[in-house]
């Protein structure tokens, strides 16, 4: 497995031991966390994949976003807005995952805007009718779910966690699309024609979303070997076909593939030849909408420059990144959700609310400047004394406004620390492989290093944590209890953004059972 001549990784002899250990960890199903040793090629592949994925979400706002202002009912308008907002949110989660690997959002966006980085080809096709909105949600998001469900099990912790969050929301995306499709399929002759036309145009581009065939996919082998992907492009494509074709047939739709047939023997829907020449053309920027999409993003970036400059001038510093900890219900611990970019702690709380509390599972939030978090993985604790700070930007940051210590007089404040040298540190641990950093308690210490030592002493009793974070209590800014009603409670009423609000399963059952599918046959 290791010694093949096509191995794209160049390995220093000294690193072979580390690599073997790394691959053994992946084989055991362990998650690799920032700070753990990883081959440079693993990091490079992840940054490439995650950023490509993030860019797809960002550009993906555009084709559907163009229909928000035209959505034909109030409910559809709200659903579509929520959906497009989720896509921006997913871009945000994913940039965060890439940032844990040392890439900055600025670098990643620069790569997108200069055309060096790619995004999914599917968004370079135009949305010509309202039916396209349904078909994108139903087919494109379903295809994305298959890919993302796989990635939720990937070996890199932050990417897997972002995917878990995304998958939960994508189910709503698919169902809202399917709901539109069902409505049109049961609608007037004109609506059915509009739907069929959309299916005809989106079918092949959707099949191409899974990427080139396995025999022409240069990165697949290494991605599978390192547990980033666990299924090949062709496997995922086949899975998609097997699931979607019968549903589309039930809806009375035809597919633009004369060779499509069911192979009883293997139980697969077999499809005709995909025009890969078109796929490569679109990747090279020659798709129907590449130019339009990039121009829109560049314009947004250029038009927004003065805004970003103004905020930097106001706070007199580069924007820090804030780690966000969410408390899902009263009494539960605060857990790491990801990070947001914000000029200061107040804006970070507002941004965090919009990014992480769109759906009702939040009663309180903490935001912490990323560079104040001192982190160690179990591997680092065991293997070396190397210690690091989460962000590569080490610029000093001092928290303003309401810090956590002000709410609790038992804590040593920043000024106490200046006098006594001792301050309170918050401790967060990840104990399960698929888990996340969870607040476990506090320690008193005179330095982050000492806080880490004391945290390990104090909290290693029951289960051995896999990753440790400590940060001074005074840099934690928390939402105030009296803000719950205005900040987090309103999400409870937005039931239309929950996948449970769509009754697509029973509607499909009715259709299969031959209930009337045509409301009006004009």
């Amino acid at each position, binding site marked *: 497995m290791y010694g093949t001549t096509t191995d794209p990784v160049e390995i220093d002899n000294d690193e072979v031991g580390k690599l073997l250990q790394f691959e053994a960890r992946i084989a055991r199903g362990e998650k690799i966390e920032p700070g753990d040793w990883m081959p440079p090629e693993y990091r490079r592949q992840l940054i490439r994949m995650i950023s490509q994925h993030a860019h797809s979400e*960002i550009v993906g*706002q*555009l084709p559907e*976003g163009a*229909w928000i*202002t*035209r*959505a*034909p*009912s*109030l409910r559809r*308008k*709200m659903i579509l*807005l*929520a959906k*497009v*907002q989720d896509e*921006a*949110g997913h871009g*945000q989660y994913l*940039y965060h995952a890439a940032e844990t690997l040392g890439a900055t*959002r600025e670098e990643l966006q620069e790569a997108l805007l200069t055309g060096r980085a790619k995004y999914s080809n599917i968004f370079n096709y135009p949305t010509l009718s*309202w039916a396209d909105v349904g078909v994108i949600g139903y087919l494109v998001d379903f295809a994305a779910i298959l890919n993302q469900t796989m990635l939720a099990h990937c070996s890199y912790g932050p990417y897997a966690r972002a995917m878990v969050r995304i998958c939960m929301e994508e189910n709503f995306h698919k169902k809202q699309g399917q709901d539109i499709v069902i*409505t049109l399929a*049961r609608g*007037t002759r*004109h*609506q059915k024609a509009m739907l069929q036309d959309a299916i005809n145009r989106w079918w092949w581009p959707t099949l191409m979303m899974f990427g080139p065939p396995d025999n022409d996919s240069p990165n697949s082998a290494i991605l599978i070997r390192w547990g980033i992907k666990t299924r090949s492009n062709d496997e995922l494509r086949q899975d998609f076909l097997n699931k979607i074709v019968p549903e589309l047939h039930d809806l009375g739709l035809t597919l633009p593939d004369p060779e499509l047939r069911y192979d009883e023997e293997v139980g697969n829907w077999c499809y005709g030849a995909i025009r890969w020449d078109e796929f490569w053309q679109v990747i090279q920027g020659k798709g129907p909408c590449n130019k339009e999409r990039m121009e829109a993003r560049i*314009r*947004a970036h250029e*038009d*927004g420059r*003065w*805004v*970003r*400059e*103004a*905020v930097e*001038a*106001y706070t007199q510093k580069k924007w820090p990144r804030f780690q966000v900890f969410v408390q899902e219900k009263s009494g539960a611990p605060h857990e790491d959700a990801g990070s*947001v*970019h*914000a*000029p200061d702690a*107040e*804006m970070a709380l*507002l*941004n965090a*609310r*919009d*990014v992480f509390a*769109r759906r009702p599972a939040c009663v309180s939030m903490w935001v912490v400047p990323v560079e104040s978090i001192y982190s160690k993985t179990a591997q680092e604790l065991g293997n070396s004394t190397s210690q690091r700070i989460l962000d590569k930007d080490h610029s000093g940051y001092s928290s303003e406004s309401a810090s956590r210590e002000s709410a609790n007089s038992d804590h040593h404040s920043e000024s106490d620390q200046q006098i006594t040298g001792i301050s309170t540190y918050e401790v967060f641990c990840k104990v399960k492989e698929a888990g996340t950093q969870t607040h476990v308690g506090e320690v008193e210490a005179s330095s982050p290093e000492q806080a880490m030592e004391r945290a390990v002493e104090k909290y290693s009793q029951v289960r051995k944590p896999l990753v440790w974070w400590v940060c001074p209590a005074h840099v934690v800014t928390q939402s105030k209890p009296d803000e719950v*009603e*205005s*900040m987090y*409670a*309103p999400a409870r*009423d*937005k039931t239309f953004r929950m996948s449970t609000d769509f009754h697509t399963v029973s509607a499909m059952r009715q259709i299969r059972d031959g209930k009337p599918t045509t409301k*009006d046959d004009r």
Partner: protein
Amino acid sequence: MTGYKADSPLYNYLLGLADDELILGHRDSEWCGQAPLLEEDIAFANLALDEIGHASLWYNLVAMLSKQDPTTYPDQLIFTRHPEDYRNIQIVELPVGDWAYSVLRQYLFDAYELTHYTKLMQSRYPPMAEVAAKIRNEEIYHIRHSSSWVQRLGKGTAESQRRMQNALNELWPYTGQFFQPMGGNELLVDSGYVPDSGQLQLNWEGNVVPFLQESSLEVPLAPRQKLSREQHTPHLKILLSEMQSVARLDYEAGW
């Protein structure tokens, strides 16, 4: 259109509230994917969603009041009414402009809504008081967001201050319409259904003027317009022709 009848001052008042929220939500939604920062793409979509959600609550009351089906009447009102039958104020129908313009409009409107709904919560018409209380919760967050931006852009760079000042100069005259009573308003005020708009104006100015000044902005002296809600700019017609374009393909079809 069918079923539309300006049959009472209360109906008109509710329709005005609903139309304001809808049209502003529509404008906010135009920022989707175009905002200066990713976090603001998300925040503005959120504002749009909230405003449209508020519109929905008010349209439901309109339907209830006119004994119409709340599951169909709001869409009928939105997607089949002509521009001249809309009862929104002009400030919400103006095109998005630059980020300064959109953020400032949002702030001026949020401050108006917060003032208005704080009073409306005490309405002697219980359904109205209930909806106002619910919406006000979200408005507290809205004003926190929009005022943070006004402050940061007003005091940011020379360019951001200039853009904010331009936006204020352009938008200020439209704010007079916030407090322009509609026909039959006295009746509603006298019955304790809605607050007196003169008092609202004083409250609003008491909050907004000092805040703008603290944000390094000069409040214009220009007189403010006192237009009726039946008067619209040409922008509304364009906005509605886009909003209604799909629904108009077939009014009777389900979408």
